[in-house]
Every structure is written in structure tokens, then in C-alpha cells.
């Protein structure tokens, strides 16, 4: 009986694993210290970090354009961070990312109510306006675009980054 139960559990894990392997990666919590981990994890690689939120009108327009950009530029690490305040809605966030073609990028969601501290770690001058895009070069230089980014500007930066490789 116990063995049969173990077998069923094992089968369940196997099915769950296969399902999860095929599924989009989960939204990652963005907490105190996450920003430094992101910088370290992508050091030396051209990285685009996009801050957005489900209630932000201009974000809704920009997100699908960013999805296409990510698809067209596999050499650029694209990261999204939902920076709306808690209580947040992971389901709505994931749904908008999926629709924008950003299911498979590295996606975070602010998960600490003390947003002043989260924002301070990223950029002490940032007051929370979204959308906001940070372009991190191979050498670690950060260029911040406030408001909706022009895709042409992203293309130009991307071209420079990939050309210098």
C-alpha cells in the first residue's frame, strides 16, 4: 500500500515536473538585495531592465513592443520588473507579460511593501514613475530612459552593444 502510494506520488511529481518544465518561469519576487543580484547575475552581458506596472497606461502600449524587441534580440538579456505597489496582482502581471510575448524573459514583481527602500537600492533619485528602462552595457554603464522608450533608441543601443562584442 505504502509502495503504491509512493509510486503514485512519484508519478505525480514526474507529471508535475514535465508540466512545469514546459511552463513559463514563475514571476520572481523582487525584494531587498535583489537588484544587486540582478546586476551580478548579468555582469558582462548587455542587459535591458524594464520597470512597468499593470495599472500604467503607457506601459500597456510599450510592453508588446518590448516583447518583439526581446524576440528580435536574443543577444540582449531582457528583464522586466513590475514596480506597482503591493498588494499586487501576480496573475494580472503574468497575463500581461504573456500577451506581450515576454513569458520567457526573467520577470520580477515588487514583493516588499517598503518600496522606498527597493527604489533607493535601484536608483536613489527614482520616485516610482513608470515605465522606466535601464540599459546596462557590458562594462556596467547604466543609461536610464524615463517614460516610454523609443524602440529605435533600443535598437541603436543594442547594435552598439553587439558590435563591441
Amino acid at each position: 500500500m505504502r509502495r503504491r502510494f509512493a509510486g503514485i506520488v512519484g508519478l505525480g511529481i514526474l507529471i508535475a515536473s514535465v508540466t512545469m518544465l514546459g511552463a513559463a518561469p514563475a514571476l520572481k519576487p523582487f525584494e531587498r538585495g535583489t537588484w544587486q543580484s540582478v546586476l551580478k547575475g548579468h555582469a558582462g552581458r548587455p542587459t535591458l531592465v524594464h520597470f512597468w506596472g499593470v495599472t500604467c497606461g503607457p506601459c500597456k502600449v510599450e510592453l508588446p513592443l518590448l516583447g518583439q524587441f526581446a524576440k528580435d534580440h536574443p543577444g540582449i538579456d531582457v528583464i522586466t520588473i513590475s514596480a506597482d505597489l503591493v498588494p499586487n496582482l501576480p496573475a494580472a502581471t503574468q497575463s500581461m507579460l504573456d500577451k506581450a510575448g515576454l513569458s520567457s524573459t526573467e520577470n520580477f514583481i515588487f514583493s516588499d511593501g517598503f518600496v522606498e527602500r527597493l527604489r533607493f537600492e535601484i536608483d536613489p533619485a527614482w520616485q516610482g514613475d513608470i515605465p522606466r528602462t535601464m540599459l546596462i552595457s557590458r562594462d556596467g554603464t547604466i543609461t536610464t530612459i524615463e517614460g516610454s522608450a523609443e524602440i529605435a533608441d533600443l535598437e541603436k543601443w543594442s547594435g552598439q552593444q553587439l558590435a563591441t562584442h
Partner: protein
Amino acid sequence: MVRIGLLGIVALALLPGTALAQMHGQHASEAACEEPTLRRATKVTPAFGPDGTLWLVWMAGGQVSVASSQDAGRSFSAPIQVTAKRLNLDWGPDARPKIVVDRKGGIALAFSIFRDEAFNGQVLYSRSGDGGKSFAELKAITANNESQRFEALALDQDGTIFAAWLDKRNRVPAKEAGQKYEGAGLFFASSRDGGATYTEAGLARDNTCECCRLGLTFVAPGRAAVIFRNIFDGGVRDHAVMTFTDVATPGEVHRVSNDDWQINACPHHGPSLTVAPNGTYHVAWYTNGKARKGLFYAHSRDEGRTFSAPMLLGQPGRNPTRPYVLAGVAGTVMVWKEFDGEKTSVQMTISRDDGETWSPPKTISSTTDTSDHPLLVSNGRQTYLSWMTKADGYRLTAIEDQP
């Protein structure tokens, strides 16, 4: 080999689960915040009644509640829930429930909810005619079904309640005409029955910034004044003031400052306006424009037509945010938040010469976790800081006469 393979799959299955588990953990810790009590509130808005009673309206656990204090915030009456069920309240950074208490003790409330999965808003209102013992069923402030958010209420001397809000109804005809529609319209309505019913909504100004709180007050009987983040030519989101001729007639738009903040984004950071008894307009706002960046103050002595040169507030390295200004009998007081990397403090400055000079800013409160915007409220004799903090609860702090 098979066992190792299975273990590997189990490990893989658990890897993405780490993020999920952390998310669930966070939700579990926030479950305590589901209670609709004042202690769990994220946004708290104060108003004094004519008899000196302090009234609070707050958002907590998806509900809006009201309670009163007879001892300047040390103790509160049993809360009365205004909402009959949990609602998807507008939890945007600049959203909060609004409250005005009239001379007869009638209480008018307004707040926004998200009514659909696309985060379209709706402004709801209610009133109490029995001194806060009960509140009328919630009603929509307008029959229109397009998105409305960022309502504001102000009370006229004769008891008229004036409401203003940001409303996206005009994007529909624009879209049908194949035209681009930017921002939202500044709409208004008024109530002559203490907030039981409101007039048909009117448009004061189209294409204003859609995601910042409004500042609203009365300048003189019938004449409401509103400060808002406008969208000027070229997508420049700078501030403007409008003074109504009467509660049904919008006035001209006057620019507060040429900050030149051209941005297609939601700043989530609205302005503050108070009008002194002598008619001086005092305004405070945030900008990240080409001309200036940070928190600023200015005043107008010609009914909001022209403003003084902007005065920078706060320490730029400490992220000054959320300014609030209120003219009171002891002087004009301003507060804002600063963050030093570990704790948030409320900074205060006071002017006793109608905004010409200001005292050196000083810290009057601080906290080590998240907090609501600092607000000022007056009972006609004393100005108080009203501040909700997650770690330390609700605080009502008298602004000292001497800085």
C-alpha cells in the same frame, strides 16, 4: 541512474517553485493585513468636524471604514464599514479615500475602485446623515462607464460639496475618430444635499495627466480651485491651476511652473494646494523636468494667475517625495517624506509670513517600514500631521508653534 534522473527532475520541479513559495510566503505574511482595521490600513485620510471631532476614513483589507476620535487621535470609536463587501480598491500610490465633514456633522465620502481586469476605475461615494453611525449605499459619481480615478472633495462655506476627478470618457470618441487621445479629462460635479446626490459631470479640462492625485480647495464661496498635472504641448507634464467661476463654471488654466517634464509615463506623484484666508495660493509639487528636478514650492498672490519662483524642498540625496501644504492660523505648514536608505522621515517647514520665508526643515516623525503619504489637517486652531505607518500605526502629531 533512473533514481538520479528522478531526483534531477524533482530538483528541477522544485527550482521554479522557490519563487512561488516565496510569493506565497509573502502573501501569508500579508494575510494579517486582510483585516479592515485601522491598524492594518494602508491609506488613512483625516478631517475635523465642526465640534472638533477627528474623523478618519481608511482602506484596509479591501474595505473602506470610518471612525472618530474625541481625544486628538489617542482613541477611536468602533469603526463603521462603509463597504458592504471586499472591493478591488484603487491601490495606486496616489489613491486614497476622501472625506469632508460639514457644519451639521454630515459626512461625505468618495473613493475609487478598479471595476474590471483592465484596471478601469470607478469613483464611488457615500454619505452619513446621522453623525457617522451609518453610511448610505455606495453610488457611482457618474453614470458614465469609462475609467474614473483620483477623485477629490472640497466643502464650500454653504455646505456645497465639490468633487473633481480624472475621467477617460473622451478617449472613446477620439478612438472612433481615429485620433490619438492622451491622458484623461478633469471632470467635476457638485452636491447641494450634503453628498446624497451629485450634479451631472462636467468637463473642466481635457488631456490632463491620468495618474496623479489632484489638489482641491475653495478660494471663496462658490469658487473651487484645483491643481493638477496637466499635459502641455509636446507631452510636457507640468502643473496647472484652475479657479472655478462658480461650482458649475470652470476657469482658465494657468501654468504653475515651466519645469519642462516631457514624459510619456505615470509619475504617480500629484501636487498639493492650499489657499490662505487672504487669498494667497500655496502650492507644492514634484517634477523631474529639464528645467528643474525635485520637490518645489511656490505661491500666487493673484488668484493663481502667476506664481513665485519655485523653491526647492528637501535634501536631493534623500529622495524627497509626497509634499503637502496647508495654511493654518499659526502659519503655512509644509511636510514631505525623505528616505535615508533605512528609514523614512517626515520633514516639516513653516512660514509665518505667507510663504515669503520658511523655517529650516526638521524631522517631526520617522518609521522603518512602508508608510502612507504625510497629510496635514487643521481643526481651525491647530494644524496636525496625519500619518499612517505600517510599523508604528496611525499617528496624529501636533505641529509645534515654534519650529
